[in-house]
């Protein structure tokens, strides 16, 4: 197989492997093709035999292969029908039945554990055959369905999916007929996204923890003015870097009276919680504030 340079090939090269043998072909290879003989050489169960039942000369080791080749009784029947180039609608039940039975008996004789479905089908075939051999009374005939109809429907239904399976198998397929591009990405600056948080989630969590705390009574969250607590943090932040800070420097005139009060309350709270230290070296001298630890 050659690639061509610059010339478009009209027919793309097929798979390098030989196409898989269809099961029927595999069986034909094992059994040899059936050949029509001229004269019936025997009559078996009322059926003229015009050919040697070649199926009977299967080497034992081949049997497994044959059985594997069929996907069940419907598949085997389809094979028997197609082998004779018969339309499903034209099947002669008697003939198909006898051929089918040959297979089944053979499998049985080889002590191959025969799937129950094969025997069930054998029984069904025998029943159809017997019904067809019965003389039909003309009164019943009109509303009596051809005994083969159900079987034929099943065969047809199975065959379309058997065919669909072959067509699906032939569809261009990833890993066999084509491959999806997988090219090296560039260096990625992958920043891990941070979780998003909704304020309501935070509140639900707080509510939950408070409810739990309430339950045990030992921990009451006081409802304090948040502005005071915030200012406590701010004051601590100021005190963090330096040692002593003039008390007055913690107040900002532009915050007005309320701001001064809040800051004062915050410092008082900090003192109460022993978080800050306040010193005044002499009476009416400047007051200094320092965080208790640095």
């Amino acid at each position, binding site marked *: *197989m050659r690639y061509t340079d610059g010339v478009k090939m009209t027919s*793309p*090269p*097929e798979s*390098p*492997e030989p196409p*898989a043998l269809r099961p029927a072909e595999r069986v034909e290879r094992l059994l040899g093709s059936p050949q029509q003989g001229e004269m019936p050489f025997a009559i078996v169960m009322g059926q003229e035999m015009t050919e040697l039942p070649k199926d009977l000369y299967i080497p034992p080791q081949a049997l497994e292969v044959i059985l594997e080749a069929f*996907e*069940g*009784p*419907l*598949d085997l029947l389809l094979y028997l029908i197609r082998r004779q180039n018969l339309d*499903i*609608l*034209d*099947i*002669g*039940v*008697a003939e198909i039945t006898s051929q089918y039975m040959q297979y089944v008996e053979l499998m049985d004789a080889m002590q191959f554990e025969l*799937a129950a*479905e094969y025997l069930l*089908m054998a029984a069904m075939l025998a029943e159809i055959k017997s019904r*067809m051999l019965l003389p*039909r009374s003309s009164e019943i*005939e*009109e509303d009596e*369905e*051809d005994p*083969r*109809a159900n079987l*034929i*429907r*099943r065969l*047809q*239904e*199975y*065959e*379309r*999916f*058997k065919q*669909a*399976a072959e*067509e*699906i*198998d032939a569809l*261009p*397929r*990833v*890993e*066999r*007929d*084509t*491959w*999806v*591009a*997988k*090219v*090296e*990405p*560039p260096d990625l600056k992958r920043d891990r996204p941070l979780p998003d948080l909704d304020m309501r989630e935070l509140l639900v969590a707080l509510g939950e923890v408070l409810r739990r705390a309430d339950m045990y009574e030992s921990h009451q969250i006081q409802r304090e003015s948040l502005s005071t607590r915030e200012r406590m943090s701010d004051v601590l932040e100021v005190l963090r870097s330096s040692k002593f800070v003039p008390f007055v420097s913690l107040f900002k005139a532009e915050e007005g009276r309320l701001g001064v009060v809040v800051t004062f309350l915050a410092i008082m709270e900090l003192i109460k919680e022993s978080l800050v230290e306040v010193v005044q070296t002499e009476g009416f001298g400047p007051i200094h504030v320092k965080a208790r630890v640095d």
Partner: protein
Amino acid sequence: MGETGLVQILEGALMAAGEALSLQRLSQLFDEFDRPDNADLREALEEVGRRCEGRGYELVHVAGGYRFQVRQSLSTWVGRLWQERPPRYSRALLETLSLIAYRQPITRGDIEEIRGVAVSTNIIKTLQERDWVRIVGHRDVPGRPAMYATTRQFLDYFNLKSLEDLPPLAEIKDLDNLSGDLPLELPGEADEPAVPEAPGVPSELSVHAQPATGTADEEPRFAQDSVSAD
């Protein structure tokens, strides 16, 4: 030519992705403030497809979105990159898969009835492991059997945009003119509806409308598989 235009960004992303990218995922490559709309994206993708002309790959549109893939005509050579041969699937598996694909949602019992044999647990397991098939519910009958359907990954793997792209099922022939070794043939027989409950094609089509099929695509009416203009 600019190297950070919309077309180049799409080319880069599709090359690197290793899987099909939907319009939605492609649009998410962009910040909100300069996110192209779907019309822009489609137009750019068409250009991306055109630019594959004469290349060893093409842009295709499958169920999962758009992807670059190796042209099938090159599979002989490209396939040699890998030591292992691509997995082969048994007929039993493929028949089971096709029943699920065409008849979904379907139970294991339904499959066994049509195939005439038991479906091995391994087959179902393999199909699920490959992400081709998933359980979409349970039928409300005794035993509550699981109902199976195919996935978007199944469509992607087989280069399909939707279940409608599956090869059409063969029609069922009428049983009206049964012949053969039936001893008698009476005129009354022809009036009988031969296949009373014959599923026929229309009921097959209804399968495609199943919401569970994973084909709900952002643009079910995209006409061609291949975007490239070759």
